[in-house]
């Protein structure tokens, strides 16, 4: 455990929400930018809220009986949504559909923009496809051995990872496009590249986190979670990976030889299992939400107790999103609540 700065066991500051609105249904995704908050509901209702006030600016039903996966473009004011009619849809921040991309048979399980924003990857069934920003198809993968469960792009290179039962496929779009696979006997459900692209983390059905060194393919498994650690968040400097899977958050140390043989930071404060973790894009500031609707804010390098807390409601937190321009957090829950906090102002 690390030294606690300031007063011991100081009560974390309660942060009042700037506003709270009811979006009407289970929120599966949030994306915030340019004073817009895009809220994606489980049945495919997409709402656009004004960031400052929470006022609803647009609301529409996407086709396909449901949606999952919402990805904000890194530069442009648009989002990609995975719909259950086999199409990924690209929308602007006013909620207008710009492109409907035939991603494959069945549900679109995941959507992800590349770090430079040039490509969108979609996963439907066993097939991964990539598209240009204009919606033109670029690549269609061979069918994977099982359904693709997650996608992530390396932030620094044009490498795309797709997870499935038994392995991760790495598509290298850079010099002389190639593909390789990182095998793991088990069901891989979430993926997260480190900011420098040197590590890839995956959460598993079997309550563990797997790490690969992407250069060598060497892997390590971190066990001991009571639940599935599916929310994985790298600190902006890449030195810590925060994971859920328990009420105690576990941050794996990547300085030095870590994480193998090093003690992770354990962040204690939640009374219910954590559901989401999200690092502020530029600061040593982590937020976590739990199954009881509570949010805690942390500065893990400084202290392992929360610095601030907030309450969304009684339902589990299902989505959190920082607005990177300011220290503003948006969070949503399974009952459809969406709220905003201005952390910098506190």
């Amino acid at each position, binding site marked *: 455990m690390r030294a606690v700065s300031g007063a011991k066991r100081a009560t974390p500051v309660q942060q009042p929400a700037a506003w709270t609105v009811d979006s009407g249904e289970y929120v599966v995704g949030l994306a915030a930018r340019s004073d817009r908050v895009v809220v994606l509901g*489980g049945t495919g209702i997409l709402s656009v809220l004004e960031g400052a006030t929470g006022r609803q600016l647009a609301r529409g039903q996407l086709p396909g009986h449901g949606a999952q996966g919402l990805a904000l473009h890194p530069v442009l004011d648009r989002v990609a949504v995975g719909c259950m009619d086999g199409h990924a849809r690209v929308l602007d921040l006013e909620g207008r559909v710009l492109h409907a991309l035939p991603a494959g048979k069945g549900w679109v399980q995941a959507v992800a923009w590349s770090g430079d924003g040039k490509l969108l990857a979609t996963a439907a069934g066993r097939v991964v496809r990539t598209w240009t920003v204009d919606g033109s198809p670029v690549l269609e993968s061979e069918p994977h051995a099982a*359904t693709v469960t997650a996608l992530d792009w390396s932030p620094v290179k044009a490498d795309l990872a797709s997870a499935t039962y038994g392995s991760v496929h790495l598509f290298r779009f850079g010099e002389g496009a190639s593909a390789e696979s990182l095998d793991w006997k088990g069901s891989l459900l979430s993926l997260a590249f480190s900011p420098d692209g040197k590590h890839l983390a995956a959460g598993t059905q079997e309550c563990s986190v797997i790490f690969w060194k992407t250069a060598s393919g060497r892997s390590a498994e971190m066990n001991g979670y009571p639940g599935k650690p599916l929310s994985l968040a790298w600190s902006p400097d890449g030195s810590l990976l925060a994971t859920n899977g328990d009420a105690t958050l576990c941050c794996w140390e990547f300085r030095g030889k870590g994480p193998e043989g090093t003690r992770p930071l354990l962040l204690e404060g939640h009374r219910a299992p954590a559901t989401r973790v999200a690092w502020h894009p530029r600061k040593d500031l982590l937020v976590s939400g739990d199954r009881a609707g509570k949010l805690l804010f942390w500065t893990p390098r400084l202290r392992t107790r929360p610095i601030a807390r907030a309450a969304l409601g009684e339902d589990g937190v299902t989505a959190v999103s920082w607005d990177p321009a300011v220290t503003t957090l948006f969070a949503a829950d399974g009952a459809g609540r969406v709220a905003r906090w201005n952390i910098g102002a506190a």
Partner: protein
Amino acid sequence: MDSKNESKKMPVTVLTGFLGSGKTTLLNRILTEQHGQRIAVIENEFGEIGIDQALVINADEEVFEMNNGCICCTVRGDLIRILGTLLKRRDKFDRIIIETTGMADPGPVAQTFFVDEDISQEFALDGIITLVDSKHVAMHLGESDECLQQVAFADVLVLNKTDLVTPAELDALEASIRRINAVASVHRAVNSAVQLAAVLDVGGFDLSRALDRRPTFLEPEYPFEWAGRYQLGAEGAVLSLGAGPDPTMKVALLPAGGEDPLGRAAEQGVRLFSGKLPQVGKGGVVGAGAAVELELRGAGRKRFMLKPQQPGSHVLLAQHLPEEFDLRVEGSAAAAQEPVETRVFNPEHEHDETVGSVGIHLEGEIDSDRLNAWLRGLLKEKGNDIFRMKGILNIKGEDRRFVFQGVHMLFDGRPDRKWGKAPRASDLVFIGRNLDRAALSEGLRRCVR
């Protein structure tokens, strides 16, 4: 972990059955009937359903091994994912139906509801419904492990397409299916027409209902399945048998006596049926007071003489159920004679590679630590062979019934309603392959303190 009250969990029904057994027809019936329930269907890729009011989700059956490939921890990865997603719109549905492919082993489907904590907290496996093509199932049972497992796993068995077989064939089929799975409820149907109440809200846990259906199930096993009492004159009667599933059948004729003549005859019969019995060919005599083995090879009905020592009431014990061999007792002028009373006995299981059920009834309070230790050891060793396990247990120090069920190596239990004035006792049922009744009974008995 916070676990939901069972009644708040969303019920899930699993439909299994070989290709052509009528699963899709039943599914369409369920979806079109006016029951006021909103249903999400997860079906295999090859199904053909066109129902507007239901959400139909196509799934690839992806069987995953968990915990380093332990065969008993195989689950349906696609179901974990799909059910997890449906949770996000759970207020849109009242129940979920999963249709499996004809060749599916039901184990991984059922295990999914035990292995994944997120799933087990939100969903309750209401029942496994297995449809059986009455015309062709006998062939499938002989050839396919999956078919056998589908029958063994079932909470409800629908004998479908009964219009394609004779009543006698159907009786024989039901009897042979009962030998595999003695606790499932059995319904007969044409064109998958069954009452929805019979297949939805089954409450797979409800062992007491299963016991109501088959009161002999937990009784000791006997070397015969049936007893009938007849009034015989001095001239005796003719025992007439048709072709059945076995080339021979053991029978015994005993003078009736006592307050419970069938029970008394059964006690005598256990002794008489042991050892090698004299064989009797067609036209031969079955004398009172001894057991014989009737030779039934060859075509046509076989007739034997039932010869009493004295005229009066006699009990006929038969190794198999009368309907399996179309057994008749004929008096003078070949008129069929109805038995005064009959009783069905729980037949002995041969401990070979067959799939069957073992039920154990036990008085006395069970020590939960010992029970856990016993079950852990048992399932570690025999988990592959034990398909399903259900029980109501009388746990020491608990004023509630403890109900539990298991699939292969996984089991899960919870306190149920209070015993109240009901007699406290434990009933445990195993369905599986190669089950050793004596060892299972002894194992449970040692958990009593």
